[in-house]
């Protein structure tokens, strides 16, 4: 019996395929990097993170932690990150409330409630988030009256050009726009996820709960929702990730989030590669954290099998 030629051998391709892949990637990366270093040299730029310790000398409109233009770029980026976290965390909380609320409304036995929820979903899901943000900012918030004659709802919430006034603090128009836009946009997607999750619970569970004499609200809270969560959480996680990433659209309305500060930093220093690396790394860490937390949460609601 003759030995088959070596290119017929799976073991050969197992090694060769990987070697070829490494080789191709290595060549491409080398070419790109050599181009990069040549181009940077031509531009007179040097790779390095020293700029982080230089004075930022630009102002940031809205800060939670203290910041002055005389602070360093690293401090400015930190301020941006805190602002991003602020919008992401409040956004995730609010959008969950909106999504669950509208998701339950989508299945209401009241025709009007059901269809209003449907209209909400179809409008907000099928238009770009950026457009919604621009609309809220330019067509809504900036057309509100001046602070002196703000629109007040029972003296609790006030709407004016300076943003939303709550009894104990004020939200800037930029923050309000971003929060409102992200919440309503992501909420529309979460609505459908929640609806799908609730519908995935078998009808028998409803009937069993009803025959025990539970009220509808309790059926939802004690029987249906815990089971629906198993279906809901994985897609919900990716919506949280989307919300966090989409918060970078803050730049369109001028809310100083991480991306906003990073792009100002780039404009002033020209350090495109370094800024981009930092930005990528930070967003990756953010995404990873959300994924980890949600995966842990997911494990706690799954059916425990022995």
């Amino acid at each position, binding site marked *: 019996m003759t030995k088959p030629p070596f290119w017929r051998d799976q073991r050969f391709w197992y090694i060769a395929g990987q070697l070829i892949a490494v080789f191709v990637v290595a060549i491409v990366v080398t070419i790109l990097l050599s*181009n990069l270093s040549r*181009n940077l040299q031509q531009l007179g730029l040097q790779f390095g993170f020293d700029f982080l310790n230089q004075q930022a000398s630009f102002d940031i409109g809205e800060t939670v932690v203290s910041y002055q233009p005389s602070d360093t770029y690293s401090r400015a980026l930190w301020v941006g990150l805190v602002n991003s976290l602020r919008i992401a965390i409040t956004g995730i909380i609010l959008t969950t409330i909106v999504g669950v609320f509208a998701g339950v409304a989508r299945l209401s*036995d009241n025709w009007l409630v059901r269809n209003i929820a449907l209209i909400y979903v179809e409008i907000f899901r099928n*238009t770009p988030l950026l457009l919604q943000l621009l609309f809220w900012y330019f067509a809504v918030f900036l057309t509100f009256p001046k602070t002196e004659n703000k629109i007040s709802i029972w003296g609790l919430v006030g709407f004016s050009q300076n943003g939303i006034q709550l009894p104990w603090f004020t939200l800037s128009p930029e923050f309000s726009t971003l929060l409102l836009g992200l919440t309503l946009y992501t909420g529309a997607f979460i609505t459908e996820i929640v609806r799908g999750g609730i519908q995935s619970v078998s009808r028998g569970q409803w009937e069993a709960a009803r025959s025990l004499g539970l009220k509808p609200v309790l059926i939802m809270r004690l029987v249906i929702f815990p089971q629906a969560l198993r279906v809901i959480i994985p897609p919900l996680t990716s919506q949280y990730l989307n919300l966090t990433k989409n918060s*970078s659209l803050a730049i369109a309305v001028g809310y100083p989030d991480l991306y906003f500060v990073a792009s100002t930093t780039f404009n002033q220093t020209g350090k495109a590669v370094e800024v981009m690396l930092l930005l990528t790394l930070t*967003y*990756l860490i953010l995404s990873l954290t959300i994924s980890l937390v949600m995966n842990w949460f997911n494990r706690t609601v799954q059916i425990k099998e022995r």
Partner: protein
Amino acid sequence: MTKQLIWLRKNLFSTWYNSILTVICLVLLFWVVRGLLIWATTQAQWAVIQVNLRLFLVGRYPQNEYWRIWIVLAIASILGAITAGVFLGTQRLTRRIVSIFAVIFGLLIIVFPVDLISRLWLFLIAALLIPGYWLGAKLTKLVSPWLSLIWLLSFPVILWLIGGGFGLQSVSSNLWNGLLLTLLMAAVSIVLSFPIGILLALGRTSNLPVIRWFSIFYIEIIRGVPLIGILFLAQVMLPLFLSSDVRLDRVLRAIAGLVLFSAAYMAENIRGGLQNVSRGQVEAAKALGLNTPFLVILIVLPQALRAVIPAIVGQFIGLFKDTSLLSLVGLVELTGIARSILAQPQFIGRYPEVYLFIGLIYWVFCYSMSLASRRLERQLNNN
């Protein structure tokens, strides 16, 4: 009791809290609709739309080359009609849909403030839709295997018609604006990201660890970063990574960014399809003696791709919406042209009108695509 009363009783006033909800909703609806109507009829100045309609649709594309855009629209419409015929031809409901479309088209032709030539073109295209649909429905068996190929081949033709060259006067990509650019960017990006997505998905499910890790690395990095960051990367950093004698214009760089981005998501969609192909299929093909490339191309991919068509349509909708971000990196697509129209001194502050109008355009496209995708899903499930 009449039928309507029974319906009202059952759907709106079944319990006391449902009655309260109904009343609250009615008050809210009344308040919103009244406000909107008052605004739209008394305060809004729709002249900004009327005057700039051309800008919204095709931007600064040279006027004496408009016929090329019309031909592009005609090609896309006929192909669309044929495709619809192939997929929906067997269904009954179509007559109602056709009449709805006819009404919408008629309204468009009559209501839209366009000149006579445009109206004639619109009418011609509308007339072409019917034989296209009929062709698709009658010759389903003959046409359907070639459908994707025809679409793919129409693509360079459309690009040539828009861009010119080879006998046509060339039109710089700076002049492709408005809705035209939005549609073009979305279509080009999804088509180009498709093969890359397939490769990445195969890479991620490969049993060669090095290739698998490269794919995972790429996919997860891209999916972890916001699109605006990737577009920025493409606009600012791509030239840095390329040799200095390669000059890409703004549109090409934006396409590169969108493709880099979209391919990672496409890969995840296709991976879902690959996992959907049962092991038995692979084993059967192996038993027939097919080697890996044939196994993948002939057996696995056709089944995998079929399963993820709805997901891909979903991604296309997402990408279509995401093209609005291009306005942030200096492209003049639909959102970009809206910004430049709002900068005209006579239309300062007309934000609600302009944003509602382009919002409507986006909405019509996205909603009809999601309807189509839902239908397609049902169709694929039935088969």
